């Protein structure tokens, strides 16, 4: 993985020193809150309902064990012993005190982490496929490109004051695990005539106006990446609206002007810009690529895996849900569920983070990933080590066998923490997970994604959930709307609203009725919830959700 050079270290140290001085000036009264707020946001510091929040970027979701241990240290030294992994592959600390934050940033700097541009109207942390560099279906590792984008976008003078935030997602696989169609710019590796390039998607996004991104360039040669991105950003920076915050994202610019006009403007700008790139970026990319060389995968007998798989049903259940195919047949990708039933989705304690760091170091070539689904990945584990890894995870409450199942829920912090939220998300997720665990149904139900947002900004990705839940404030009471049929993969789709919302104590029973209906009408155990919905549409689910309305019609 990428290692900071002397320039990176000096840049980060200087930036942290600047912020330390800004915090001091806010505390001594030299800066007003209006002056300080944009400065703190540029460095990932929010003020939420009960405390400050520090959002730390995990670039393209990749960590090594030393970095994970440092995240644990921050949780224990300056927070309340845990951190929250988010849908943008970041980690958030919910309880830092303002005077401590400069020390936290310095501690992060020691291991090459930072909080720069995790907020504000700039280019945010580039997210990537969490199986990058390991997946069997991958054309090429997207992370060197994500690192190139990180270096290019960090403190890029032209793009520090965009009309609104700007998010880039990248995947190197045809199977999209990075939700690239819901990003301002999505990059998908594709192959054409034996050459690998990018399909560039623009104008996707969730929030109050959810949109699936549109293809602006079906094949972009790799060396053109930065000049082309710069052209997209440049066109957006000029054309994007600044009169209305809710119409300022590039998805609205694309919608109002049409993809054809945007494409025309971007291509014209690209002709101007490409000549400004003299090859330095390509030299840098070549250097970055050396940091991402695959580990020397060890070979060995996998019979220990097979023996445990047939002998231990608990291990088998975990292996069936939490492992994915690795490009080396004798290795596996392990998804560690941070969704123990009844716990807060995405919250890991400092102790758990250390266990994950230890496992990465002992069994996983020192690599960890954070997924947008708020889980932690050990991307390379030799199959013979899986029984040992599972045993250690089990000892620390990390062996929940539910990846891709109904209790593997994405939930934003919601009104338990977030100042923007209109309702709670976390307790709804906790209760759904607990309920279906009690019913012992989740393995029968199979693949089903529930995603919950506590306001229309949709940090919980509810629009692209098979069952999406949106918490709102209706006349001073929490109310939850349901959407069905969303899809976060390469066949991305926005879910459709079922009808009126449900009160806090009605939402879990409503989800239960949806699932009962699905179990009753699916053609076989192989047909997933999403497939049943696509086959039969909304009607049977509506009947289950609103029995009273159906009676009135009859």
């Amino acid at each position, binding site marked *: 993985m990428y290692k900071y050079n002397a320039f990176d270290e000096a840049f980060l140290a200087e930036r942290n020193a600047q912020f330390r001085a800004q915090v001091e000036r*806010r*505390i001594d*009264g030299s800066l*007003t*809150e209006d002056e300080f707020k944009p400065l703190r946001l540029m460095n990932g510091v929010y*003020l*939420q*309902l*009960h*405390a*400050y929040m520090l959002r730390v970027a995990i670039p393209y979701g990749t960590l090594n064990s030393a970095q994970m241990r440092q995240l644990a240290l921050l949780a224990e030294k300056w927070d*309340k012993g845990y951190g929250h992994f988010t849908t943008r592959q970041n980690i958030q600390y*919910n*309880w*830092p*005190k*303002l*005077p401590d934050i400069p020390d936290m940033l310095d501690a992060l700097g020691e291991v090459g982490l930072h909080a720069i541009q995790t907020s504000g109207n700039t280019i945010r942390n580039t997210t990537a496929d969490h199986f990058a560099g390991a997946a069997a279906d991958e054309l090429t590792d997207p992370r060197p490109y994500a690192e190139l984008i990180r270096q290019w976008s960090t403190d890029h003078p032209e793009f520090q004051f965009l009309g609104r935030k700007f998010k880039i997602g990248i995947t190197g696989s045809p199977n999209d695990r990075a939700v690239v169609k819901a990003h301002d710019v999505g990059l998908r590796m594709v192959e054409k005539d034996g050459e690998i390039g990018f399909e560039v998607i623009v104008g996707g996004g969730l929030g109050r106006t959810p949109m699936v991104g549109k293809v602006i360039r079906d094949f972009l040669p790799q060396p053109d990446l930065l000049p082309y991105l710069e052209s997209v950003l440049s066109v957006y920076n000029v054309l994007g609206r600044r009169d209305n915050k809710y119409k300022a994202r590039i998805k609205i610019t694309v919608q109002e002007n049409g993809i054809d006009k945007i494409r025309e403007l971007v291509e014209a700008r690209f002709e101007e810009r490409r000549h400004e790139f003299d090859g330095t970026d390509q030299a840098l990319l070549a250097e970055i690529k050396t940091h991402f060389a695959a580990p020397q995968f060890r070979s060995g007998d996998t019979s220990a895996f097979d023996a445990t798989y047939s002998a231990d049903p608990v291990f088998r259940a975990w292996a069936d849900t939490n492992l994915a195919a690795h490009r080396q047949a004798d290795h596996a990708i392990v998804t560690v569920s941070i969704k123990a039933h009844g716990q*807060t989705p995405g*919250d890991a304690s400092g102790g758990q983070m250390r266990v994950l760091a230890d496992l990465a170091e002992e069994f996983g070539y020192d690599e960890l990933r954070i997924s947008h689904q708020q889980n932690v990945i050990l991307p390379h584990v030799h199959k013979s080590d899986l029984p040992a890894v599972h045993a250690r995870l089990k000892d620390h409450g990390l062996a929940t066998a539910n990846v891709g199942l109904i209790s593997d829920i994405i939930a934003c912090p919601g*009104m*338990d*923490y977030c100042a923007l939220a209109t309702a*709670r998300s*976390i*307790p709804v997720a*906790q209760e759904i997970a607990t309920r279906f665990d009690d019913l012992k149904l989740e393995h029968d139900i199979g693949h089903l994604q529930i995603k919950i947002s506590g306001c229309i900004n949709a940090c919980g990705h509810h629009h692209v959930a098979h069952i999406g839940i949106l918490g709102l*404030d209706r006349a*001073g*009471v*929490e109310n939850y709307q349901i959407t069905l049929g969303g899809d976060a993969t390469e066949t991305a789709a926005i879910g459709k609203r079922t009808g009126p919302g449900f009160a806090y104590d009605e939402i879990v029973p409503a989800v239960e009725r949806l699932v009962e209906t699905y179990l009753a009408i699916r053609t076989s155990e192989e047909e997933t919830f999403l497939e049943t919905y696509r086959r039969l549409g909304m009607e049977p689910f509506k009947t289950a959700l609103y029995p009273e309305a159906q009676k009135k019609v009859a």
Partner: protein
Amino acid sequence: MARAFTPKVITANDLLEGDVIYFTAEDTWTRELSEAELITDEAVAPLRLLDAEKQNIKIVGAYLADAQAGPNGPEPTHFREDFRRKGPSNYSHGKQEAFANV
């Protein structure tokens, strides 16, 4: 017809700790909503907010929040202010943690 004025308290976050604070009748800040000044006069509310904002050097984002009189002082009328008063519902952190340690 204009909506009838509902009683208010002034609330903000502490600059250093970031936690929820309330403005008292003595122009000081308290961690307890029950000790806040309940403002019942519509004409007085914006003036008291100006008084509170004079202390912007140590607070962040003062605003008027709906509240009602209770047996032990002001109480929240909306669930958002109730969460701000108590802390999150997934852990006993925030103000509820402080109460537990008393």
